[in-house]
């Protein structure tokens, strides 16, 4: 019989990106015994790739900035589908979490008077992103990693969780395996925090690392957790489009934040023609005004390149569709003619390096060619806005895998601070829950045995399919049928394709041993990826309107009916997924006033922002 090693923890954190590490630190501070599981080595999680910065209304660059402005910007950017209480918790706490990182050793870029510097980003009314050049994610993860090591973290590196374990409806641990050896591990835990990040790898063109296979959403859904608003996938407007092998790699929004402009093949700055109704009057209307803004004129409005990501991504797609795209199917992003070479190298060093090395292009001299790339999922596991508790006892979620904060579209920079605000809340609440569990650690041996047999099945199935080929098929069809523009026929086709892929995902074949075997890992990843792809497609079919990251060709406009509805994706007892529309949580009058202020003047006049 297959042997396994057992570990006991009060709190098991799955994922060691920003949210997972911050949750672990919070739980250790509460006195819990904490284990952290990560699929990669410590410090390599997808967070490390975040570039532009972390949003927090600290008011270091513009003193007018405060949580209320950030609250309004976030709800407006999210198409008002955000959970208002999460947004309030987030915008109020983010500055403290940034300062805390500095106290733990993070070294942010500075203002002339020695404070943490803040930069402009899309959808933010003021320069709000604390940053370190364009490698803010590295700074965040290294700081949390160092602090977690100082606190005595137990990290299980290169370990994959295959299933959560339950007992009487509550989560009591997880079953996984060590990727290096193939040995199975049982983690018995009183509480589990999922901090597994996103699902970008279900698409062909993505900025996401291999790890972002949507594990957490599927694991949670399989034990009965609700998912929310899974139709909202963010396609970041600026991914690399050339050469083919780099397609999708991110070009930070910091390029536009630092003054970069978007042009089509005719040399026209097309964003002036793409300002949506809800943002009319808030952006520069001429190149001359945008130029004055860049020079620091406080009376000038921001350039339309700094509209939200959904708007910019669709505008680029429109230029390409109408025949004004760049040679490789994107648009031109030009910082070279806007800023001196030294400035670009200082503020965007990794972009300079990336294009030079991978694209043979000097961004201080030439424009970049960019196009939309799958970047982020706004939806996720439904959580309580204060504790990050899911509807399954013992299970918590934080970071990208949790839904609710970002609504229909996430503002750039709102992710890195989301991780630390809600990572901390999840870790604290999980530790408090664990402290109340007085019984002994129990897992169901039969459940463990059954999952181990399931996980090993591809080794005993010589006639099965190549898991890499299946993965390629999944990603290509999701890109085609459920990508940046959607319509009913294609979504229905994709559901049929997924039903077929789901069967085939359980009929793969792998060769070689169990130690560090990517074929085996891919075979198991596929089983979770088809589940979460189905949730995305079902939710996209149900939302018959266009809003935020969800664009329907057959319903091109926002619909007031859907403006009041979240989509809950729930699993029936027979394992099938279905979508339930639920009214948004009611926003109190005083918060509504902030969110719906016509402009910044009204916000400061009426609600004292």
């Amino acid at each position, binding site marked *: 019989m297959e042997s396994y090693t057992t570990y006991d923890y009060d709190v098991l954190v799955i994922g060691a990106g920003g949210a997972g590490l911050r949750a672990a630190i919070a739980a250790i501070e509460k006195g819990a015994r904490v284990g952290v599981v990560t699929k*990669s*080595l*410590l*410090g*390599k*999680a*997808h967070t*490390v*790739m975040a570039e532009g910065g972390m949003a927090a209304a600290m008011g270091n660059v513009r003193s007018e900035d405060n949580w209320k402005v950030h609250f309004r910007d976030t709800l407006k950017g999210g198409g008002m589908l955000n959970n208002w209480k999460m947004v309030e918790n987030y915008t109020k706490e983010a500055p403290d979490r940034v*300062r805390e990182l*500095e*106290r*733990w*050793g993070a*070294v942010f*870029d*500075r203002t002339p008077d*020695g*404070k943490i510097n803040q930069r402009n980003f899309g959808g933010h009314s003021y320069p709000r992103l604390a940053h*370190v050049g364009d*490698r803010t*994610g*590295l*700074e965040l993860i*290294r700081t949390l990693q*160092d*602090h977690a*090591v*100082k606190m005595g973290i137990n990290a299980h*590196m290169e370990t994959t969780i295959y299933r959560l374990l339950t007992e009487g409806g509550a989560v009591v641990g997880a079953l996984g395996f060590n990727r*290096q050896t193939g040995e199975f591990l049982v983690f018995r835990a009183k509480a589990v925090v999922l901090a597994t990040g996103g699902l970008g790898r279900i698409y062909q063109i993505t900025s996401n*690392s*291999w*790890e972002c296979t949507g594990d957490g959403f599927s694991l949670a859904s399989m034990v009965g957790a609700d998912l929310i608003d899974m139709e909202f996938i963010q396609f970041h407007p600026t991914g690399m489009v*050339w*050469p*083919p*092998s*780099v397609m999708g*790699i991110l070009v930070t929004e910091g390029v536009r934040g630092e003054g970069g402009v978007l042009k089509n093949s005719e040399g026209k700055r097309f964003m002036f023609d793409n300002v949506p109704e809800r943002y009319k009057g808030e952006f520069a209307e001429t190149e001359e005004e945008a130029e004055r803004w860049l020079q620091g004129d406080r009376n000038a409005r921001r350039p339309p390149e700094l509209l939200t990501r959904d708007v910019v991504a669709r505008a680029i797609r429109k230029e390409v569709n109408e025949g004004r795209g760049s040679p490789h199917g994107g648009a031109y992003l030009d910082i070279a003619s806007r800023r001196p070479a030294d400035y670009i190298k200082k503020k965007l060093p*990794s972009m300079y*390096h*990336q294009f030079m*090395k*991978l*694209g043979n292009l000097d961004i201080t001299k030439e424009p970049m060619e960019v196009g939309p790339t799958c970047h982020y999922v706004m939806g996720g596991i439904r959580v309580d806005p204060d504790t990050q508790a899911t509807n399954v006892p013992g299970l918590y979620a934080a970071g990208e895998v949790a839904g609710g904060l970002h609504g229909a579209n996430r503002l750039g920079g709102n992710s890195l601070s989301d991780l630390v605000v809600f990572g901390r809340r999840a870790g604290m609440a999980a530790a408090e829950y664990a402290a109340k569990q007085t019984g002994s650690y129990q897992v169901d041996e039969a459940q463990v045995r059954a999952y181990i047999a399931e996980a090993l099945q591809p080794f005993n199935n010589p006639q099965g399919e*190549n*898991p*890499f080929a299946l993965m390629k098929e999944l990603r290509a069809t999701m890109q085609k049928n459920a990508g940046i523009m959607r319509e009913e026929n294609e979504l229905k086709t994709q559901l049929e394709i997924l039903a077929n892929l789901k069967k085939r995902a359980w009929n793969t074949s*792998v*060769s*070689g*041993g169990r*130690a*560090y*075997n*990517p*074929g*085996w890992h*891919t075979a198991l990843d596929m089983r979770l990826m088809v589940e979460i792809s189905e949730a995305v497609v079902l939710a996209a079919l149900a939302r018959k309107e266009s809003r935020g990251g969800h664009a329907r060709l057959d319903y091109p406009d926002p619909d007031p009916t859907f403006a009041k509805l979240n989509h809950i994706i729930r699993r029936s007892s027979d394992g099938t997924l279905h979508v339930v529309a639920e009214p948004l949580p009611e926003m109190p009058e005083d918060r509504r006033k902030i969110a719906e202020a016509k402009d910044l003047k009204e916000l400061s006049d009426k609600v004292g922002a």
Partner: protein
Amino acid sequence: MSTVTFKVFRGDRNGGELKDYAVEVQEGMVVLDAIHQIQAEQAPDLACRWNCKAGKCGSCGAEVNGKPTLMCMTRLDTIDTSKPVTVRPMKTFPVIRDLATDVKWNYEANKKIKPFTPAPGTDWIMFQEDVDRVQEFRKCIECFLCQNVCHVLREHDEKTGFIGPRLLVRTASLEMHPLDIENRLDMLKNEGGIGYCNITKCCTEVCPEHIHITDNAIIPLKERVVDEYYDPVLGFFRRLFGSKKRAEPSGQAADD
């Protein structure tokens, strides 16, 4: 499109050999793309690490034609592909399988470094010119290529008494932080083994982040250690006036 032969190390801790794979290459491809293509089409159990594919995570370090490099940042059109391209794992660390090596020693050695310790009561005001220096060190993506080429670790396997360039860089980032008050010179001299470094600059040459490891981190740290422990004149004054060169923690709670 042309076909290139890759000779890839296949094996584990107990040994292994180079195996040939033919790969159809297209414009812009990097070595990591070729490895992925081999995985998907010819050898699904070929082990290699990667995360970001953009030179930001430092996972995919290997030795391509004998040169330590990030596979994701090594374009095929920068190497001679008319001859077979060899890809081997980093030599300094034990092989787990194929191109994946066991780098956990780095994480263990890291624990010797005392963590960031700010002065109590600090106002957290720092100027850009004061942080430029440590920001250079904080660019490190922990690819461990510098550890891989360091003679002390690679040829002499001195992993007990030396922490290697990566961790000397980390120590420098803490020692030169404008608000840190911890003293790590004793660690550098003793268990850190900074004296083992004979400044051949191999680490600097392979750093994908272009950190001036030797000139900006290691040499200044060596100078501090020398000043502290080996300078007879300074030693005399210290005996006379005491050796404190930094403020001791005052015991007050840190501000917020």
